[in-house]
């Protein structure tokens, strides 16, 4: 009897936590179907849903900003994987650079954006790259490349050495063994790292706000822009917020299983 009481109180606490987490999504989703008048009566549950907010959002600049965000995310992740995966392998297999280099990678990832934004802005200004997706992509590389590298170290550590040794006995060079044997083995890790990197790029406001302009604005800058000029367009802003949330929440279900191992970055296990 006591056990049952304990289990029920555990479920009760978790249920409360669930409501705390889900309510903001629910309330924002609701607002996206409300008229401005209905939004002004928060306690009134009787309202006629309208699709006007969604229609207006889909006809605004938002779809273009979604495209920019996707483009920047894909570019950042692609470059990070191509540059980061061999490096992570070298750190894990050859103990390249020892602990010092792992420390530098970790420190690079932790660097606050405020430190890099001034020089990056001035450099992009001089190179005439402001308001292009390259400026944002390069700035996103500063935190996503170290993260993806750090993330992959942990996955490479888990690959048994015998696998490559076997391949090399069969006549592969070590590079070939890396490409043909090791990379396919850690495919789930590569996928999780890519998805996580993409989410971080998708979420960034700070760099994007300062390095983009009319043509290259990303989605977070777009939704941040809803309340500055014409007053707050609550309904439309809610629709845009829901639009940014949905893809990452879906992505999160695929990533969470691998997240812990990756964040350990070979530090906890290695």
């Amino acid at each position: 009897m006591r056990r049952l009481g304990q289990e029920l109180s555990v479920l009760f606490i978790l249920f409360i936590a669930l409501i705390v987490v889900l309510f903001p999504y629910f309330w924002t989703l609701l607002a996206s179907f409300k008229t401005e008048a209905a939004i002004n009566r928060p306690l009134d549950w009787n309202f006629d849903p309208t699709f006007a907010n969604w229609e207006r959002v889909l006809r605004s600049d938002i779809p273009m900003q979604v495209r920019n965000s996707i483009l920047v995310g894909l570019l950042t992740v692609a470059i990070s994987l191509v540059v980061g995966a061999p490096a992570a392998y070298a750190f894990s297999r050859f103990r390249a650079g020892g602990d010092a280099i792992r420390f530098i990678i970790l420190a690079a990832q932790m660097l606050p954006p405020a430190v890099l934004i001034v020089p990056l802005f001035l450099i992009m200004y001089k190179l005439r790259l402001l308001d292009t997706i390259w400026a944002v992509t390069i700035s996103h590389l500063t935190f996503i490349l170290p993260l993806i590298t750090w993330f992959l170290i942990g996955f490479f550590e888990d690959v048994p050495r015998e696998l490559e040794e076997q391949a090399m006995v069969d006549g592969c060079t070590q590079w070939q063994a890396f490409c043909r044997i090791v990379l396919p083995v850690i495919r789930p890790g590569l996928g999780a790292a890519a998805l996580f990197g993409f989410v971080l790029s998708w979420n960034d406001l700070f760099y994007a706000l300062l390095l983009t302009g009319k043509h290259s604005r990303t989605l977070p800058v777009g939704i941040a822009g809803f309340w500055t000029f014409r007053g707050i367009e609550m309904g439309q802003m809610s629709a845009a917020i829901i639009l940014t949330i949905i893809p990452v929440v879906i992505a999160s279900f695929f990533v969470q299983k691998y997240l812990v191992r990756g964040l350990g970055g070979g530090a906890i296990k290695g």
Partner: protein
Amino acid sequence: MIRKLFHLKYRMLFPIVLVLVLIMGYPLVFSFWVSLHDYRLTAIENVQWIGLKQYAMLFKNASYWTAMRNTIVFVVMAVTLELILGFGLAVLLHRPTTLFRHFFRAILLTPMFITPIAVGLMFRYMLNSQLGIIPNLLRLIGIQIDWFGPQLALFSLALIDVWQWTPFMMLLLLAGLEALPSEPFEAARVDGASSWRIIWHITLPMMRPIIIASVIIRMLDAFRVYEYVYAITRGGPGESTETIQYHIYRVGFLYFRMGEASAMAYTLIVVILFLVVLLFYSLRWEREK
């Protein structure tokens, strides 16, 4: 020697070294150079060397210290709450008897994936004193709270951080719990110890290194708080929610005083580096055990 330089190890590392030097090394050096000059975007033709004067001036700059203090208060409030709630939830979700625990885990983790600006705007809407559902519900039971007034604004921002990042703390601690050996727990249960005693005398001491690492990781992240301030208060009322990251943004990009902003950024590096070194040693210590 030459052959050694062409070792696969170095060929594999060359791209990352090149990219990091270009996108981080060079900007860091450049930024230090800027911090030693009176570098204003409004007077870019007339950049003058002033040495360490900007750093010296920071000591007398009240806004800078307010921003630093606000940031530290914010970080301490947010991370403390996140640790308590995150640890509690992690323990509950770790219990093998808890029903639906994978379902709860998946849903409870979602806030950490959402862009912070969206989180800021959602809460700005929900806590707004006219439109917001929360103040309206509280009013029904006779409580009037101005969430973004001068006394509470910084605390409200910390609560928003708690909503978004407790899941991350929970995730790290769950990973830690899963890595613990099971023998001490079984022994304690056989001896008839209560759940509370097990948590207090066995779980907490064994988790200490992981807790320390998780707290430092969250602190490092919380130091960058910017989006909630930008979305909700823009540093106000007064300077009560001006955080260091937001302050640097304002000085550099609204007042165009890039030199001063760079100097502030460099003082921030010192704080961050201190935390990173702590984190590094705590991770290494754990590994060597």
